[in-house]
């Protein structure tokens, strides 16, 4: 039997205030040793992602090679994120590296499929060896007020995940208001999410600083109230080292340093890794070597 849930009474989010706070934190100036530390930390938090219709086993193998050998003495990324049919390829390519394989299941990105299909999608990805499942919530049900349906689906998918960690994508660009983001965050956490994630990357706007701020407040408050720590993943639109560092500052000053590890915070991105690597080279050599000195995979 699926447990019923009640959403606690959550304080509202003032849009202007939340955006001002995020903008102010974005003015933090991270330099020298702090910057070097932040860049390496950000690299370890990357879920290196390819989610294209044109993805092939070859493309995924190349991405996995990049994940395992980012170049120089750079640390490894947290995981590679692919569609379910390419999980097996990624698992083989990453064998022995310690890098996780995340897969977007549940009829990603729209989530518009019958629950049975979503469950099978998830089960197959897990059976192929995915260590993390990135599911999407039913935004239609959420916006029409059927929170129970959204909750029940997350609970059902969670039980299909077995050992795999469940990241619940809220697709905040479709939820639109910060009040909705806060509500959906709590709903997902109550339903058993290990991570809450901003976006699929297929809807604009994807991750933004204020949305991530609201989600970080939610995981902070959830742990204070329920005693369980939940991670946050910002995904989509994060392309530069500067962007990534802004997210780390946001984590540091909102949820706190407990979340500043790949176990509790992730950055879902594809081109971000190369900028992080370039900035890393710049810091160690003092000069920009240019895009030809980082690999394109």
């Amino acid at each position, binding site marked *: 039997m699926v447990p019923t849930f009640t959403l606690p009474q959550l*304080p*509202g*989010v*003032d849009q*202007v*205030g*939340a955006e*001002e*706070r995020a903008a102010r934190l974005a*003015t*933090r*100036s*991270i*330099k*020298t*040793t*702090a*910057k070097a*530390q*932040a860049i390496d*930390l950000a690299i370890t938090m990357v879920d290196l992602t390819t989610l294209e219709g044109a993805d092939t086993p070859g493309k995924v193998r190349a991405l996995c090679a990049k994940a395992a050998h980012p170049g120089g003495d750079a640390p490894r990324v947290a995981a590679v994120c692919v569609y379910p049919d390419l999980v097996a390829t990624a698992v083989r390519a990453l064998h022995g590296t310690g890098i996780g394989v995340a897969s977007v299941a549940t009829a990603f990105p729209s989530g518009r499929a019958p629950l049975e299909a979503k469950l099978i999608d998830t089960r197959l990805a897990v059976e192929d060896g995915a260590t993390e499942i990135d599911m999407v919530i039913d935004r239609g049900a959420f916006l029409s007020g059927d929170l129970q349906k959204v909750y029940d689906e997350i609970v059902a998918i969670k039980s299909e995940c077995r050992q795999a960690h469940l990241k619940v994508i809220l697709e905040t660009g479709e939820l639109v208001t910060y009040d909705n983001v806060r509500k959906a965050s709590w709903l997902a956490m109550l339903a058993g999410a290990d991570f809450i994630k901003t976006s699929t990357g297929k809807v604009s706007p994807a991750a933004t600083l204020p949305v991530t701020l609201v989600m970080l*407040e939610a995981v902070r408050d959830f742990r204070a109230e329920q005693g369980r720590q939940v991670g946050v993943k910002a995904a989509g639109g994060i392309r530069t080292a500067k962007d990534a560092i802004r997210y*780390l*500052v946001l984590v*540091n*000053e909102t949820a706190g*340093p407990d979340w*500043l590890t790949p176990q509790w915070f992730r950055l879902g991105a594809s081109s971000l890794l190369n900028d992080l690597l370039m900035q890393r080279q710049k810091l160690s050599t003092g000069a920009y070597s240019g895009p030809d000195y980082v690999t394109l995979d």
Partner: protein
Amino acid sequence: MFEYAPAPESRDIVHIRPSYGLFIDGEFTDAKETIKTIDPATEEVLAEVGSAGPEEVDLAVRAARTAFETVWGPMPGRERAKYLYRIARIIQERSRELAVLESLDNGKPIRESRDVDLPLVAAHFFYYAGWADKLAHAGYGTKPLGVAGQVIPWNFPLLMLAWKIAPALATGNTVVLKPAETTPLTALVFADICRQADLPPGVVNIITGAGETGRLLVSHDGIDKVAFTGSTEVGRQIARSVAGTSKRLTLELGGKAANVVFDDAPLDQAVEGIVNGIFFNQGQVCCAGSRLLVQEPVAEEVLARLRTRMATLRVGDPLDKNTDIGAINSAVQLQRIRDLSEVGEQEGAERWAPPCELPEKGFWFPPTVFTGVSQAHRIAREEIFGPVLSVLTFRTPEEAIEKANNTPYGLSAGVWSEKGSRILWAAQRLRAGVVWANTFNTFDPASPFGGYQESGFGREGGRHGLEAYLEH
């Protein structure tokens, strides 16, 4: 742990001269006596500035009178506007220099002087430049008063200068302005900007000095208008000296603002607003939200969130771009904050501050909150003018308004609620010149600012700000 490495703004952009004279009739002239101004973060002497005596005050007033009668008064508004626009643009161009200098002389964090003070200073000049040729539409007449004697405080040195000088010049008055004794430097650079803008000599005169210079200025027979921002105590003295003369007077004085958090408030943003209300500029803000009134059902939660947030505040070097709280402006002010905080403890309120290391030299006070405060406590009634928050609770909206209004002051107030009708209801009942809804310490040149009761009278900013400088 993610430690932020020091990220100091370079002070190379600022060239502080060893000494500055008085700016009278378009020229810097040496004063007979001098005073020193220091960096409150290090106690290092920054420069020597003149201390204007009776003769020098007289010279400045005469220069302003001549400029008023021969140049500035007769000049068409559209021509005055050009000068003001030019000044505004030069301020923007030199904003980094001015921001660094303001932080050095005042102790405020560069983040604030760069992101708040300087943009507002330029905006104020742009705003009043726009009014200069449209006075006929403002509804207060078009005839200037003459010479304005203006005395400003040390908490927002250049911004208060802008609030005083921009409307005065836009309306055709000339000015003699005295910056605060501890923060004269940006006003002296402003004098240089006036020259750079080719402002006719005598339109703006800047005389530095301590309280005595201010007293000489406001009691000088040659001025037509006194504008003062500062303490209520000095405001009273000025009101006495002006009484019985034909001088017009506006006073912007102290405050003990209530920041009212209802139980349906957006709590995270309210906490941010509480922090911004009392720790902005080290709490040295006349409209600071120094009394937090929080509704009992959410009091514990708000305080818990506030403490967590306060623990992330970064206190230290004002020129570090990551500093949230800088130095207290002077030893005198620091002593006042310490004294009143001790009184708070003696009277039984509970004091809390996050653990934070304070530099050894300079004037520092950690962000502090007092809980268990009641209306009877001195820290709930007297202006501390420092980073010290007093927390009181209330049960009903009526009680909140009653407590908020139970003060001799009435400069500002804040209301936090997600319910629009409650905000409007509260705003109508709060006796304060400014009521902020779901924000605090937000300023705009188009919005009038001023107080009730012991917080002063007259409005600065907006169309209303023109009234004090026009004959009607």
